[in-house]
């Protein structure tokens, strides 16, 4: 295996008395697509948010693309440019157009001129199939379109890793496909991706590895076929059975 681009070791996270992550190790290789599944409250979103330090791990280490994310000397805002994140509720800025959403960080963080940023922003919107929606505000877009703008906002910064936190959970079923399609394209372009989601079909087709988490720990992991068809742990089997019934 190539040198991992994401290396998290012994991650613990406490929220007050709640022990949400109980020592999680996660290594992700370049160009790998890792799927994280598990019941709600199992800590999968928290793990994802520890990787770009939206959540401060209580202990452990996180190295992304050679940068120690937890070192106080690390310029966290610079480091975060290399880690794109997509949220369940899109979190687009409602007071800006789609293009404004995509170009803000290009201008204010990456230091691009307005002209440069807009060229890059339009290219990113084109990649998600929304070149003709640049001037629309989020309120004028469907959920699926909003999520694709959110993906464009992240990839415009040319991240080394993309984190997806339940990217399709807030979408009407008929809009899920368009977002998964964009994620497939990203994968084919060689993007390293960590995806928290229950889209089993997508996981089967696209994932290199599926991780099952429960109660703040990784219970088991392996290729999608192994995890979905023939899980070795009873808890995994029970969970897979539950989500397949839906």
């Amino acid at each position, binding site marked *: 295996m190539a040198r991992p681009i994401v290396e998290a070791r012994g991650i613990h996270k406490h929220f007050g008395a709640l022990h949400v992550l109980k020592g999680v190790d996660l290594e992700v290789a370049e160009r790998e697509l890792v799927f994280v599944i598990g019941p709600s409250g199992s800590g999968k979103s928290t793990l994802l948010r520890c990787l770009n330090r939206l959540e401060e791990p209580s202990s452990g280490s996180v190295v992304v693309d050679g940068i120690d994310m937890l070192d106080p000397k690390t310029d966290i805002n610079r480091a*975060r*440019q290399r880690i794109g994140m997509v949220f369940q509720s899109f979190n687009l*800025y409602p007071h800006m157009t789609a293009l404004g959403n995509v170009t803000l960080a290009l201008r*204010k963080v990456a230091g691009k001129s307005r002209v440069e940023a807009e060229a890059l922003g339009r290219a990113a919107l084109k990649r998600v199939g929304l070149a003709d929606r640049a001037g629309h505000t989020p309120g004028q877009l469907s959920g699926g379109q909003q999520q694709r703008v959110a993906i464009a906002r992240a990839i415009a910064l040319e991240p080394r890793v993309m984190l997806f936190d339940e990217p399709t959970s807030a979408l009407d079923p008929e809009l899920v496909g368009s977002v998964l399609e964009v994620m497939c394209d990203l994968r084919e372009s060689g993007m390293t991706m960590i995806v928290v989601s229950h889209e089993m079909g997508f996981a089967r087709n696209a994932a290199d590895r599926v991780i099952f988490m429960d109660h703040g720990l990784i219970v088991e992991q392996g290729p999608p076929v192994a995890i979905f068809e023939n899980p070795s742990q009873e808890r995994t089997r029970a969970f897979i059975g539950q989500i397949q019934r839906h």
Partner: protein
Amino acid sequence: MIETFLNPEIIAAIWPIVLAGLANTVLLSLIVVPLGLLGGLIVALLATVHHPLVRWPLMAWVDFFRAFPPLVLLVLLFAGLPFAGLELGGFACVAIAFFLNTGAYYGEILRAGIDSVPVGQIEAARSTGLNRLQAMGYIVLPQAVRNVLPDLLSNTLEVVKLTSLGSVVAVPELLFQARQAQSLTYSPTPIVLVAIVYFLILWPMVRLLSRLENRALASRR
């Protein structure tokens, strides 16, 4: 009746005095509203710092100046500061009093506005590498201000009305000028005239406020 309360001859005679007062009221408003907003912004931004060493003094500060009658504060500054060796004019005292008093009110309004912006907005901004201040300035504050615009405008209306307090410390604004004219003419006409002027400058703001409030109500439905 008209002879007493709106005497045309008296109006003609005192009109320049009232006009000078109007100019000062407008000037005073143009100074104290931005000052109050600045004070409010400072309060609201400090309120986002959850450290107890910031939190408790800030709460005490805001509570104190909201509980303190602005007229008393103004007189205290005007009459008290000279004894501390600080001889400030009436205008400066009004500016300071409004910075303290209306700053506390604007601060509470802006804080509510900031709280109304979903935390996911900040997370999205931070995840793209924007720092705290950038996230606040580009993402949170524009939405916060939009969400509490009717309250901000309503408070601004109150602030403009309160500039009449300046008359107590000899700032020659509308009310002060009217009382000068009244003592010169022994007629209530100047006061009535000034009341009308106040109404004419404030009424458009009241209309605008009503429209904003109705729109806010409609969008909440």
